[in-house]
């Protein structure tokens, strides 16, 4: 699906580390390797994005190629022979990861710091015996004055894989963030280095989700998130009718973070909007209404059962219709309703009460 120009689909075999693997034209080395359970590390790769081949972590040997080639971008062809483990690749990984470490914030143990969203670079660096390179102290600027409530960027953890900017462009078509400057000064910026609230950003937080090193992180999540014991519960977002799947991360029965299931797993393909990802404060809010309330003759709201509440609504509507006629009623359904629920609402309006005064708030 990522390769619309591929005209004919052919299957053939390629060899990875001497093992014969089935491959389909248009696939990359990483596509095939992952399906076969062969591990090729990646950092800048996201199945939703065009391959960038920028992090260089996935370099492999391809027979006939003098240079190492990026497995995430290298297209398969029949009888191709790939090697993913060799002395040369091990040396490449050792030095490359060491170089990343010279350009990254490290913890006391000398590894790239852990973050609330993990840090894939840290995991990779655990697999090598790093060279003690002196830090390069790249002049990579952040946006410390950005007051947006949700998304934080820490340039000291950024590896410039550009997943966030490519996501913002290729998936969201929002283009709020960009690679900026050049060389060691390259950073993730907004136009005029403005805060995200003053850009086209919709605060969907997809940049956080795709960031492999935790350089982009939820401002709301507790700092010690990684050490908290959290449970994950799959749920459906009820802010609209799309049916995005959510993973609620809870600690002591309180939601501390929301993420999407992995790309490719559910209808939302790893994406969420600002509401689904960040608007969970209502869940534990003290003002949240947790039971139906019916206004009594004393003018105050009183807790009631659903039975009592629905009866009160039905009686009220019927009495208005009896007194002023059906067209004195209007029905407006919420944008949070599904298509089926909206259908039922117009059925209620037209068939039960006999009026065409029906609308849905997202329609205007």
């Amino acid at each position: 699906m990522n390769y619309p120009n591929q005209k004919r689909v052919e299957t053939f075999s390629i060899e990875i580390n001497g093992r014969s693997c089935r491959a389909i034209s248009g696939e990359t080395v990483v596509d095939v390797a992952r399906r076969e359970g062969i591990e090729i590390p990646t950092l800048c790769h996201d199945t939703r994005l065009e391959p960038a081949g920028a992090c260089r972590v996935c370099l492999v040997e391809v027979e006939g190629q003098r240079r190492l080639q990026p497995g995430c971008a290298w297209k398969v062809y029949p009888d191709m022979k790939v090697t993913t483990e060799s002395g040369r690749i091990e040396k490449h990984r050792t030095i490359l990861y060491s170089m990343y470490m010279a350009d990254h914030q490290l913890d006391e143990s000398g590894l790239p710091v852990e973050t609330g969203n993990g840090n894939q670079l840290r995991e990779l660096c655990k697999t090598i015996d790093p060279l003690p390179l002196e830090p390069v102290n790249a002049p990579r600027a952040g946006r410390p004055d950005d007051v947006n409530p949700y998304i934080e960027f820490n340039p000291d953890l950024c590896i410039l894989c550009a997943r966030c900017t490519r996501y913002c462009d290729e998936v969201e078509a929002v283009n709020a963030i960009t690679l900026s400057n050049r060389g060691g000064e390259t950073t993730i910026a907004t136009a005029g280095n403005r805060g995200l609230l003053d850009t086209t950003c919709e605060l969907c937080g997809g940049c956080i989700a795709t960031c492999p090193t935790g350089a982009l992180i939820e401002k709301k999540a507790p700092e010690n998130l990684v050490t908290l014991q959290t449970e994950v519960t799959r749920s459906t977002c009820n802010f609209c009718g799309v049916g995005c799947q959510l993973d609620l991360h809870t600690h002591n029965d309180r939601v501390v973070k929301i993420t999407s299931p992995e790309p490719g797993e559910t209808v939302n393909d790893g994406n969420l909007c600002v509401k689904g990802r960040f608007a969970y404060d209502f869940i534990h809010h003290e003002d949240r209404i947790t039971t139906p309330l019916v206004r009594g003759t004393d003018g105050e709201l009183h807790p009631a059962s659903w039975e009592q509440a629905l009866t009160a609504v039905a009686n009220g509507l019927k009495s208005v219709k009896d007194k002023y006629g059906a067209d004195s009623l209007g029905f407006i359904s919420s944008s949070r309703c599904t298509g089926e629920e909206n259908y039922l609402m117009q059925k209620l309006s037209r068939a039960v009460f006999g009026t065409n005064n029906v609308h849905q708030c997202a329609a205007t």
Partner: protein
Amino acid sequence: MQKPNANREKIIELLEHAGGVTEESVREVHQQTGIAEADIWGTGLFYTLLREPGKRIRLCDGLTCQMFGADSLANELTDAGKMVERVSCLGQCDLAPASLDENMELVTYAKHQTAISPPNEFAMNLAGEVDLTYSALAKVRAMDPEDVISALESSGLQGRGGAGFPAHFKWTSVRQQAATERYVICNADEAEPGTFKDRELMLRQTHKMLEGLAIAAYVIEAKEIYIYIRGEYTNEYRAIERALEESKDALKEYEFTIVKGHGAYICGEETALLESLEGKRGMPRLKPPYPTESGFRGKPSLIHNVETIACVPSIIHRGGDWFRALGKTEAGSKLYCISGHVVAPGVYELPLGVSLDELVEAAGGYVGNPIAFSPGGASSGFLPITERNLPLDYKHLADAGSMLGSAGVVVINDTVDMAKAAAWQLEFFERESCGQCAPCRIGTQYIRRQVDQFVQLGDPASLELTGDVGWEMEEGSICGLGMVAAKPLESARKHFPDAFKTRD
């Protein structure tokens, strides 16, 4: 009909007209084009000439200019109250030190003029008469395109931009593509430190280049020709404009567009050049696909360096065998740039494969006691003067662990500290790295810092791991810049070990 990304292609030029990148200019360009503000901002800030709006003197800090006192000149200018920005090689090494004034006009401080070969029988013949007849183009138009390619093949013409790739392969490859929308692109983004041959060619024999481009367009059946010229080449830009005016009739079937670069060495890399033409940050693309298959606007594109394409009319006139026989060890004559410690720096056209001694003889001899030379720009590293008899061609230099590259030869005598010379070159690569891939982005920073530390403290321990980092830069970088960026240090350490011993 407007091209789908026509607005994106305009943004860099619009930013230039607006005086560079500011919040206001970005908003303005956004309103004119509909391109996202962030994209305009990020693209603009990639290019040195757009990054800091405002007028200033741009003073070269390339190797030769540094050898001829650019640092002290910078101090003098600053003391005189001028605003001075140090910039990468301006391609005026023969007139070092060099600068651009506040209006981007060239100001050089050498006491001599550029020297060039006297009129000769070679392919470029820079000092020769200008041929305005466009008779090679007329001849080609009566020929089968395949015969033109055969002539190129028998000439043995290799790409003169640096890679030395046989030219005819590209022409054949473009002709084999199914897509009929095709482009000819001239790479006039000459920015390799030590190199200024295309500069003289554009100033003196512009029509050879234009005629070569038109011949290429005829053969690959393209209508549009783009010339991407570095933004610092103000005089050369005007020379091309003038030549296009002079040859309006002869070239009327082709649509020429001159596009200015804006201060990014990497845009001389052909896929970065394409990105820049498309209004993007000049970050090299992954290859394959190659530009002959998917180039400008994703269409088959034939990209040649100025000198390569300018060889074509002579090959058509006098035949491939004639051209091949001009060379000594490889085919053709070649423009060699020579600067540094020689008597008459300039551009000399000589048989491809002459030795350094032969080249320097043409340039009036050595100045002082030469110890080293850089045969093909910063990317080629350094060779010891003991290699003075090595043929300066693609193969021999590659075998010696160096390269002919753009044939920007710099001669260095014993007044220069080789560790410092390496540091100057590394500073260039650090500044010009596009930042896209980690090996180059981090590697150029790392090795430059370590060499600076060595020059300051004199402790060779600073350099202990630079070899490993250099290995990874060569193995792991996306493009040629990262692959060669450690070369100056690596070659200087190999050939001049004494310069890297403990210092007091």
